[in-house]
């Protein structure tokens, strides 16, 4: 089965419990259609570069999927009709790396730098 990477943005005012529920819902659709979840990442609430339907921020979620095109189509159809999903994009990829995405790494390096500075001061 081909590999896909799906990124979608959920409205900012959705609670984290609901966010998990929505994400699990999409994963369930994939699993019900014989696919697998290869990777899941939550990028946190990010500022959108531009307003989408009056939303300025959103929860970013990345799913790495190993699923049939039909399963992906079904998931995207659900996303399209979901009120909470403000944007989604699924791409076919040749491989899904298990390392965290650079978007998360940049966050981590920021934290490290801060720690270094305090260590120097002490």
């Amino acid at each position, binding site marked *: 089965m081909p590999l896909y990477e799906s*990124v979608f*943005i959920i409205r900012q005012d959705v609670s984290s419990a609901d966010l998990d529920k929505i994400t699990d819902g999409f994963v369930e659709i994939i699993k019900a259609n014989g696919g697998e979840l290869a990777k899941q990442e939550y990028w946190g609430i*990010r500022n*959108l*570069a*531009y307003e*989408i339907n009056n939303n300025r921020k*959103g929860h*970013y979620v*990345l799913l790495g999927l190993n699923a049939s095109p039909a399963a992906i189509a079904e998931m995207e159809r659900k996303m399209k009709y979901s009120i909470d999903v403000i*944007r989604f*994009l699924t*791409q076919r990829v040749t491989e899904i790396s298990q390392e965290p*995405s*650079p*978007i998360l790494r*940049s966050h981590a390096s920021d934290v490290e730098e801060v720690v270094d500075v305090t260590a*120097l001061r002490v």
Partner: protein
Amino acid sequence: MSEERRQRVTPKAGSEETKKVFFKRRKGCPLSGLGAPEITYKNPNALIKFVSEGGRILPSRVTNVSASNQRLLKRQIKIARILALLPFVSGGTK
């Protein structure tokens, strides 16, 4: 110690160092070789360096990106725009 060094450097920085940063011609492609950032829409902080203030993709003759990397970069920037990680246009009237 580090503070002393910084103080010594900063007065110079206004005249020489900053000029160097802006006018120094980098050898080779900034996206190839060791330590180069990964070209992917998942790395918008790296991509934003290859986008103008207005949000347009900078030509490779300005950024010195190799032709093959520029093709990858173009694609990834466009994906990042769709996902609102990078702007289509920024600045202007708000």
